[in-house]
């Protein structure tokens, strides 16, 4: 197997380093977003104000994990379709179940 020219090798190495830096940034950002969410709960804001913010923060974390850590970005589109189909199904099932149980319980 050939490693390619030294120039190509250096380019791959550069790409991998920037990739690693991106992973660390996303990882740290994910931890920070979690702490921000906990802080918002602890300061005792109104439920109607804080709940949408918490859901938005969780959505950002989920998308960061899926597209960067799970490599959906740059992978075959088919994987993204399955992920989005699963996510849509999850939201639909979760919402329907919640409404049905609350009505009948």
């Amino acid at each position, binding site marked *: *197997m*050939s*490693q*390619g020219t030294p120039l190509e090798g250096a380019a*791959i190495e550069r790409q*991998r380093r920037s*990739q*690693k830096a991106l*992973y*660390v940034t*996303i*990882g*740290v950002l*994910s*931890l920070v977003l*979690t*702490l921000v*969410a*906990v802080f918002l*709960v*602890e300061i005792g804001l109104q*439920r109607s104000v*804080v*709940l949408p913010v*918490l*859901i938005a*923060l*969780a959505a950002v*974390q*989920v998308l960061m*994990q*899926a597209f960067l*850590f*799970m*490599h959906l970005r*740059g*992978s*075959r589109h*088919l*994987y993204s379709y*399955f*992920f989005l*189909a*699963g*996510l849509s*199904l*999850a*939201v*639909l*099932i*979760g*919402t*329907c*179940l*919640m*409404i*049905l*149980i*609350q009505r009948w*319980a």
Partner: protein
Amino acid sequence: MSAQGEAAHLPLQHETSPELGLPKDNRILGLWIFLAGECAFFASLIGGYLGLHLGVAHGPTGAQVFDLPLTTVATLVLLSSSLTVVLGVAAMQRRDVRAMQIWLWLTALLGIFFLEFQGFEFYTFYHEGLTLQTSAFGSAFFTLTGFHGLHVAFGVFWILLLLFQSLKHGINEDRTTKVFVMSLYWHFVDVVWVVIFTLVYLAGKVG
């Protein structure tokens, strides 16, 4: 052949994914289909919890029993494990088998820490009067978090299995796909926890 020696035969970047050097394999597609099904499974548990969490009968409410600092630490531990596993995959891509093994050990360790936190939490809740039979809230809570814990335990077992394989037989193209597929599963388990932490613990504390 030693691990390092076999690593020299790992596929090159241009032979795998054009941009990221990731393996192309039907097992990856298979895992994404599996994860779509898992989304539906956890959605039904979360939807069930959200529908039942107000049914506390004579037992404690979520706001009374949830220990937010403890759960926050557990969450940070699990999120850190997502970073360590992705760094393990990155090390595998650059054929650094030793670094990959270290990152995977760390991931397994963080997973075990998380399970310990969860075990402690369940033990505390039991002593505070919240069990599976106490109320609809208790049943829904323990079912949801218990199933998530089982997924984490399975993930830890999977990581350890791959680690022992890589220590014994080194790593080749087939095993890189296995490690990559395992990492996808692990990230998914983390993603589910982010949703559980937000909708169960944080929303439960808000009121």
